[in-house]
């Protein structure tokens, strides 16, 4: 784990750590990285990945439209809203 990777990760996840936090995190990545090393020792070539612990199939619904809440209800806690829109700083591109 190097500083560059940590910087890229912060950008990717919209977070910014202080220098002190970054150093602490480097140490953590070393420790947590050991988890990956431990798993690496197990041969899983013929093991299928397990996404669902209680697998089922075809949990689907019919195509019926329903309205649950009004726009005003949904925007009641919006940090900023205007004319029924959520509002953010102007985007470039």
């Amino acid at each position, binding site marked *: 784990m190097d500083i560059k990777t940590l910087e890229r990760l912060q950008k990717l996840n919209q977070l910014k750590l202080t220098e002190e936090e970054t150093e602490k995190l480097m140490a953590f990545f070393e420790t947590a990285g050991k988890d990956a090393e431990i798993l690496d020792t197990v041969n899983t070539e013929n093991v299928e990945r397990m996404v669902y612990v209680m697998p089922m199939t075809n949990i689907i619904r019919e195509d019926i439209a329903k309205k649950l809440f009004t726009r005003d209800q949904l925007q009641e806690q919006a940090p900023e809203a205007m004319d029924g829109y959520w509002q953010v*700083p102007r985007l470039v591109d």
Partner: protein
Amino acid sequence: MYIAETEKSVKNIVVDDMILTTDMATSAGSRMLDGYISLFEAEAVTKLTEAGYKVYAKANTGEFNLDLMGETSFYGPVEADGVLTTAAAQAVKSGDAMAAVTLEVNGSSARGAALAGLTFVKPTYGTVSRFGTIPAVCSGETVCVTAADAATAKEVLWTIKGHSDKDGTSLPQEKCVFDEVKEIKKVAVAKSLMVGEGAAKVEEMKAKLSAQGIEVVEIDGEELLLAKSAWNILMSAELCNNVSKYDGVKYGYRTPNYETIDQLYTNSRTEAFGYLTKSVVLFGSETLSEDNYFKVYDKAQRIRRVICEALAKVFGEFDAILAPVSSKLSYTAEEAIANPYIAYEESLYIAPAMISGVPAVVTDGVQLVGPAFSESSLLALAEKL
């Protein structure tokens, strides 16, 4: 955010800060969701209310319930008699609540109950709907019950169990609610998990079980050690994804310091999330990166199957596994805060049940882990003890 002061009632239920209610804020212990009021409530809350229980208060949690026992909460940790506890356990222990219904994400509910001497049950994954809970680690997190005794825990758990068509992981009704109790005759103790002070509690329990005529056998359980490593990876990756929606745009905390959209995102998240959440997000993100996906994340998913198969083998021979819940029998808030990654270490004990979705019951400071759908059997044993 602490437990509201109301009249004591036998029907009072406290739910934790990961379970959505419409009349009280749900904040996931995070500044990000400070004061957030949901437009809808959790299926568990609806079921409790319909059955005549009163969901009277919210119990504080650590941020997204990832930590040891609430020490990372935006609202501060809860201590009782100088030691760290969870607000949910404290509400039950004090007698204010007959039971606590919590979203177990990374073991804090089990630890809170074990260290307070309460009974806790984590049912089989998919038997209680997660509709209306704050998503953190969707493939493992489970709505759980803490109570003073096994009978009460069962009563409340059976109230909230059941199929929900609003949850795509909810099992069919006949699998959710069942009364079959199988007598527990043979229990395994995994040597791999017998580390730390919690092992002493297991020794006490061994004596009690033997007195009941239950055979206790030691096994190696080497594969169970893998659970911690695999769980830490899966937990981090899913958490990273699930908290990405908190960005200061739609609701919740928005930084006052921004001009551009990236500043809005970055500063809101940086100012509102605590250090543990940030660490988990960054680590989780890395496990999913193009370079690491197959090496780390996908590998952990395969190990998950290895663990489930190892558990199935144990349960072919034994009715339950007896194990400690934590490495120490008490923690101060100070020491938990001083080691931000303490939950990554303590997951050793809770990971086997969390990663595989099997039920676990905490009683007398230890846990009994059983095969899928064995919660009624585990609770029956706990009641007898």
